[in-house]
């Protein structure tokens, strides 16, 4: 913005409004930007418990570095105009005619500078999306940006009206209401739904992925701090959407091992009733389908029809196909 203001100032007489504005703007930016970066930045959501959370925090702060000067610059300009150029104070000598109707330099500078800002934001955003393996967002069934880590813990997140459950395919495929995540581990969340669209939002993990029926939506993150995690449904899914939340924990690897093995044993009886593990959670062959479609020719839920092939636990360790 300083470009334009400086240019304007050269074209007009009287006090050098452009220079004043530019100086004020530079001073304000020089104060506000570092202030935000150092004082507020480290506390910005969603925190830094995982790679994707800290990535989102970093990106947010970087965007703020550009957004604050732009916003304050525009407000400063408007404030300056309101204070200085009011008719009740006499205002300026009116400029009419072609001079007031446009200024090629300013217009070009404006377009060029906004284009540069926008393209930089695009390049930055793309890098920040691709390098950290999708930045914690749901990448669909065939993720194209995958983590570098050799070992990935897959956790299947199942949305249903109205709760989330979690299946751990590498631990016998048990299913539980509680989300437990080991620390310093790369996780692949395989998010799917039994019915309508939900959205798995593990706030502190910096992970968000829609849960679609018959779809496997994969999101990656790597944990690096212990703590409590809030999980909320972020896509309107019916009456209890607002109550569709629960809490998870990032725990040490050994605690997680103990928890997982004990659950595997304790829940063995239930696990036996569950359908064989697959990337989309296919309803049981006799599962209630609501009898909305009366033809009964192609009932839901025959695994062979819907293509969701069961996979062995060994296959399940590496999430990508």
């Amino acid at each position, binding site marked *: 913005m300083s470009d334009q203001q400086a240019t304007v100032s050269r074209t007009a007489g009287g006090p050098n409004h452009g220079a004043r504005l530019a100086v004020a703007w530079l001073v304000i930016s020089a104060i506000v930007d570092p202030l935000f970066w150092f004082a507020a930045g480290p506390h910005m959501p969603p925190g830094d418990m995982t790679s994707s959370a800290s990535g989102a925090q970093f990106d947010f702060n970087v965007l703020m570095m550009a957004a604050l000067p732009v916003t304050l610059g525009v407000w400063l300009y408007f404030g300056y105009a309101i204070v200085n150029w009011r008719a009740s104070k006499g205002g300026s000598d*009116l400029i009419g005619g072609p001079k007031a109707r446009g200024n090629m330099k300013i217009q070009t500078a404006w377009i060029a500078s906004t284009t540069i800002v926008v393209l930089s934001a695009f390049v930055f955003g793309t890098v920040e999306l691709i390098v950290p393996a999708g930045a914690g967002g749901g990448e669909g069934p065939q993720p194209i940006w995958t983590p570098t880590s050799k070992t990935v813990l897959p956790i299947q997140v199942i949305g*249903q009206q109205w709760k989330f459950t979690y299946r751990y395919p590498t631990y016998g495929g048990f299913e539980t209401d509680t989300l437990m995540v080991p620390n310093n581990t790369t996780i692949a969340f395989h998010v799917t739904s039994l019915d309508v669209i939900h959205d798995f939002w593990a706030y502190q993990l910096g992970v968000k992925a829609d849960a679609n029926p018959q779809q496997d939506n994969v999101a990656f993150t790597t944990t690096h701090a212990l703590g409590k995690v809030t999980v909320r449904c972020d896509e309107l899914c*019916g*009456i209890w959407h607002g109550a569709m939340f629960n809490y998870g924990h990032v725990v040490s690897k050994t605690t997680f091992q103990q928890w997982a093995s004990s659950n595997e044993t304790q829940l063995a009886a239930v696990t036996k*009733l569950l359908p064989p593990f697959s990337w989309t959670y296919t*309803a049981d062959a006799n599962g*209630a*389908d609501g009898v*909305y479609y009366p033809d009964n020719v192609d009932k839901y839920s025959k695994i062979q029809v819907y293509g969701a092939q069961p996979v062995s636990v060994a296959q399940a360790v590496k999430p990508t196909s």
Partner: protein
Amino acid sequence: MGIAMAWPPRDEPSETVRGKGRYVVGRSARLGIFSSLLAVAVGLVVFVSMAYLRSEPPTLDFAAGHSQGQAVDMTLQTVGAIGFGTHPSWVSYLTQAPDGKWVHTTLWDLPANTRVNVTIDQYDSGSALRNPQVGAVYGTLGNAATLNGKPFSLIDATKGNGVGHTFSIPTLGINVPLYGVNGNAKNFCNSAPCTLSEAHNTVEFSFMTPKTTGQYGWQCFVPCGGGYVYGNGGPMQTISFMDGFLKVVS
């Protein structure tokens, strides 16, 4: 009519174009008309919000006269078709009020941090589960429940009569499946309230209400809203049918 206009424009009106007295009725009459329209609008809004939007089934009070440490007994029933009201064909829960009457509600006042003994008479037939995980009992006291007097911890919904409904409080981690009755039973109950002479299963369990007061939603996890995609519409999304609140009070 060219307009080479002075700047800034003159303050006084350059041309008065419309006078008063255009209206058929006088000023006070217009004021009256407007005020009454406003009053009607306000009345309509208040009526709609109070009489319609805020209307809800009655809340049964299990907390009144409750003394500390004493357990609360609560009896519910589930029925395949409520048989009355605006949605006679919907499945529903009913609650027995302390005076013994069956009330079509799922809202209860319960004292905090108190043991609640629940008896559910299940009159509905069952089906398989979309998610068999909800066939397990968990979150009750001792993770225990009895079916017709016998303890059980898991129902395989693909066998026998399947699961009719569940009683689940997701935020408290409580889940109890209710075994279905035979849909072909001669004495199958077709409309509420059902009586014990009709085919039913009795499920009993206990749970502790939380220490913090507030409203805790509960629901059924069996897709029993027939005629809706995924079986989760209609009664499954309507308070007093398959959804309700524990209103935990101190």
